């Protein structure tokens, strides 16, 4: 909290409404440690490569939003399958898909 400038940007962008600014002003402390708040969250491992890449809570939230949306079921299943995969593996996945598509098109053209 010692570095916060109370601009409210975090409140503005917080998607879950977890952060709210209050008019409370009694923030002075004798001990610098009291200005810190720490939170530990479990990390999720990528299902492909096993690297930890995001908090479990965040991925669960993304999945819940996906279920809440009224997108077609195909889109939901396809996106849901990629939920537990890290960004790097997603990129590799996309590239291999594109390569396959290119190969298929080439075969068809022949």
């Amino acid at each position, binding site marked *: 909290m010692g570095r916060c400038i109370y601009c409210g940007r975090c409140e503005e962008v917080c998607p879950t409404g977890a952060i709210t600014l209050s008019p409370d*002003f009694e923030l*002075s402390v004798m001990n*610098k440690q009291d200005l810190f708040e720490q939170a530990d969250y479990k990390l999720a491992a990528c299902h492909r490569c096993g690297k930890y890449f995001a908090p479990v809570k965040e991925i669960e*939230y993304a999945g819940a939003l996906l279920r*809440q949306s009224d997108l077609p079921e195909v889109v939901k299943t396809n996106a849901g399958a990629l939920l537990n995969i890290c960004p790097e593996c997603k990129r590799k996945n996309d590239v291999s898909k594109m390569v396959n598509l290119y190969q298929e098109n080439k075969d068809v053209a022949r």
Partner: protein
Amino acid sequence: MLRDSVSNLTVAEHSKYSIHEDPAAGQLKAALLKDIHRSVYVYRVDCGGCNGCEIEIFAALTPLFDVERFGIKVVSSPRHADVLVYTGSMTRSMRVPALRAYHAAPEPKICVAYGACGCSGGIFHDLYCVWGGADKFIPIDVYIPGCPPTPAATIYGFAISLGILGQKLKTSHHVQGEDEHVSLAHPQVPYLLRVQLERESRRMAGYLYGKQIADTFLTMLEENPNQVKENVQAYLDKQADPRLSEIVARLVTVYDGYQGAV
């Protein structure tokens, strides 16, 4: 002397020379706080801030807040000071004057780190010329965070440093529980519709009021999707606010557009 010996040191070398408070001075300070029967004199040391903190300190001196009624007086020499207020992040070129002010003030003295910059370097913490907050160089007794701290926060900080009030903030450590999940906002409303409504509302009324207005609309939508227009109209009639009516009318348009698309 001091200027010559310290001014060419790097951060790492400087930390070897950082001041540690004498235990005897600590006892004197406790006695001062207990037996003080006069005004306290405050000297401001600006170590390289934007002057926002100074403006708020002077705002605390104006008749509206008037810290002088508590006997807190701002003086113009560290020789007179009981309290040293360090504002601004500690810049390379101001660290020696800051140390000189510290040594010039008579014991017992109370040091206050004022503002986000004084506490930790603030938004300037990673600048090439900023060496951190005041606490890296000087034994700090009280931290007053804020950018800048309001006059009310300033008065509270002085009350803490004089031992009149106790501090409220405590450090906390949260560990994720077993069944801890993020709860969805308005789970009955489709996600894309919610985003569209929130965006339109924010566009019209800013993020704070926009969020409140969108939340009201979404709650009404969740309660009774079939009768939402009648309920919204009744709500608007009750509020009798043309600005609110216009914004909510736009939300209804967005809602109709979404229904039409689906």
